[in-house]
């Protein structure tokens, strides 16, 4: 469908357009958004994301294909932003279309859970006190 790593602001509508089809009665979307509280409840001004795109994009495609084979036929699109992001900006956008909603909900959750564990992308928290730290994701399903 559509798999993308970009420095530009994400456009969720373009993911909806990529997955919609006359066969699909449901589209589930997930947006990851930069929030104020970082690790240890330290407030951040924003985040910086970095990727290894040559590996991350194939891994994103593999996750999308797995989601479709595990839960039922689904059309998947994933976009991840890199670079500097301010509070409230969208870091990751996922859209999943399927014939009925149950498959789309399950597949969308699978995609974000797997992305956090398997896709080589990193996040640096820029705290308000001026410190920064690369923060890894927690164990599965966190």
């Amino acid at each position, binding site marked *: 469908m559509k798999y993308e790593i970009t420095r530009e602001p994400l456009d969720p509508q373009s993911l909806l357009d990529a997955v919609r089809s006359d066969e699909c009665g449901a589209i589930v979307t997930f947006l*990851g958004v930069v929030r104020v509280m970082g690790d240890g409840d330290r407030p951040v001004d924003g985040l910086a*994301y*970095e*990727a*290894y795109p*040559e*590996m*991350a994009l*194939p891994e994103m495609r593999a996750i999308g294909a797995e989601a479709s084979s595990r839960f039922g036929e689904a059309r998947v699109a994933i976009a*991840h932003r890199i670079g500097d992001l301010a509070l409230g900006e969208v*870091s*990751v956008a996922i859209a999943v279309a399927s014939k009925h909603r149950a498959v789309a909900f399950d597949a969308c959750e699978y995609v*974000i859970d797997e*992305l*956090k*564990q*398997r*896709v*080589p*992308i*990193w*996040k*640096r928290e820029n705290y308000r006190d001026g410190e920064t730290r*690369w*923060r*890894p*994701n927690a164990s599965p399903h966190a």
Partner: protein
Amino acid sequence: MRVRVLTFAGIREIVGEPSRTLALPEGATAADAWNALAGEFPALAAIAGSTRLARNGAFIDGSAALREGDELAVLPPFGGG
């Protein structure tokens, strides 16, 4: 042989550059390459347990043999999403 090591995030900050060429003996493994890098940058030793390795875009174990021209990525824990 020479392999190109790609570094990311906290590891890139320790090494000070996004890629670095290592000269290794024939038959060297991915773990040998990591040890060579950690020898040069002792701060890496503390994160050896959480670092994953990939050769030419595919995850590998430390026991995998490297070849001339390989691209070895050293990957700290992921934080995407």
